[in-house]
């Protein structure tokens, strides 16, 4: 809790109304909020204000948020969450590929934003590989390569296990097709058939861990982008 209170968030949006309600909401959850209305100011404050995470609008007056993301990524791994009215899968994928950690489409609920923020911040905590991770009714024992669903052992193939582990390690955060294929198969998404392979594996995995595979509540599909493991049940 004490750590959370000291977390510093830089909010970058040219709309004053958006900045002020984000400030109100984030402050009330114990975050320390800084604001910028332009890309130039954001780039400067991303260094001078020492933020722990950045919430970034794409449609800035002086420079596109995508460029800002790339600029920041050149020197820092600080979590970036994009907030934008652009809802095309293409826009989301290019922002995520440019190094953003997550993407929220406006209008959004602050509850959703806070959940995403917690998910990307979790990534910063030192990950202990010697532990049992839990999400809802699923637990994964990393040292023993063991997955349990409602305390019953689930029989996963090695690939299914790798995907589930990857998803759980970044629980709550979106993973693009590219990222999953790279991590699990070490393959590029442009390769023919690999996306099909990914879809089939996800579908089988859902069959083993979801209460109702027709209505997944753990492994969520992000249309045209990738998958996300819901971290809060």
């Amino acid at each position, binding site marked *: 809790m004490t750590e959370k209170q000291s977390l510093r968030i830089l909010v970058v949006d040219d709309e004053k109304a958006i900045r002020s309600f984000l400030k109100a909401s984030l402050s009330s959850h114990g975050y320390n909020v800084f604001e910028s209305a332009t890309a130039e100011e954001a780039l400067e404050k991303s260094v001078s204000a020492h933020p722990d995470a950045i919430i970034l609008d794409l449609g800035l007056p002086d420079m596109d948020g995508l460029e800002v993301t790339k600029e920041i990524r050149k020197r820092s791994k600080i979590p970036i969450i994009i907030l934008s009215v652009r809802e095309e*899968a293409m826009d989301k994928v290019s922002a995520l590929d440019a190094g953003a950690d997550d993407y929220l489409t406006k*209008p959004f609920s602050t509850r959703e934003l806070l959940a995403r923020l917690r998910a990307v911040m979790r990534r910063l905590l030192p990950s202990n590989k010697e532990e049992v991770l839990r999400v809802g009714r699923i637990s994964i024992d990393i040292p023993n390569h063991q997955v349990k669903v409602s305390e019953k052992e689930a029989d996963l193939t090695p690939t299914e296990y790798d995907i589930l582990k990857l998803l759980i390690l970044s629980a709550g955060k979106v993973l693009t097709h590219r990222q999953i294929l790279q991590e699990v198969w070490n393959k590029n998404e442009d390769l023919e058939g690999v*996306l*099909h392979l990914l*879809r089939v594996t996800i*579908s089988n995995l859902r069959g083993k861990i979801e209460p109702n*595979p*027709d*209505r*997944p*509540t753990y492994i*969520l*599909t992000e*249309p*045209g982008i990738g998958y996300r493991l819901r971290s809060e049940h």
Partner: protein
Amino acid sequence: MQKTKTIRKKIYPYLISIGLVFIMTLFGEFVKRKLEPTNIVMFYLLAVVIAAIRWGQGPAIVTSILSVLAFDFFLVPPYLTLSVADLEYIFTFIAFLIVGVIVSTLASKTREQVIQRQKEKLQTALLSSISHDLRTPLSSVTGSLSVLLDNDAGLDDATRKELLETAFAESDRLNRLVGNLLDMTRMEAGALQINRKACELRDVLGVTLEQLKEKIEARNIRIDIPKDFPEISMDFLFMMKVFFNLLDNALKYSPVHTPIDIKATAFKDKVRIEVKDQGIGIPQGDLKRIFEKFYRVERPQKISGTGLGLSICKGIIEAHGGQITAENNLNRGTTFIITIPLA
């Protein structure tokens, strides 16, 4: 099917024009002993004016030319030949043609003006309908928030929460409406970009149902997709919109205790997906019209909606080369049937 229909629609006026000339000629045969041929011309002129007003310039000019030929052949001596005994008739023909063209131009211009005026009327109606639809949720939002701002102290917690929930739900509705209008505009401008990729129907439905989570909590939604159902090349996001709209309608127009069935069947060259409810059904005469934009079935009980959802569904499905139809079930409710060609 659609093509032959439009061709028939185009040819039809010309056929009628030929018929008109035929009738005038018959009439001329009947009165040619009593009337001067130059007077009979007046009847042909009538045919030209009718053609111009009803169908525009093309059929009117065809009528003029046919009239001159028929007049010459049947009603100007020597009969049953195109040659003329009296050279004066050449002037009659030329004058008739000129008058025919002028009259048809004028008449078709009037016709275009009438059509233009109807279009403008329709646009005004659309605009007022849209602004009404936009203002309704907006006024709920403004209303709820202004109550909270004005007498915050006098409200108990439950009321305050209710007002906030209303404002939130209505702004969500407003957002959806704006999205629909945007899709509609894109569709009309031919700018709907369908990005087809192989996807699993099960997955598309899963995400859609997740979006409708709150509304379907108390409902029984049964999904029947065969294990070997193929992946379909389609736009994931747009197909979500289709199923969202169909399911939203099914939920809206059927009682809570009735199930909603989604059934998929694969054929050699296409897939068929049905969304079936056991609700209030659709009057037989409206089954086609419900896909027209802004069309809404008139019902005694007011159920809110804009008449955009189904026309967007139709636009999306057709952009996939498929079809969407609605039929009433034998017992009760409606089934929406989508077919999409494979590859």
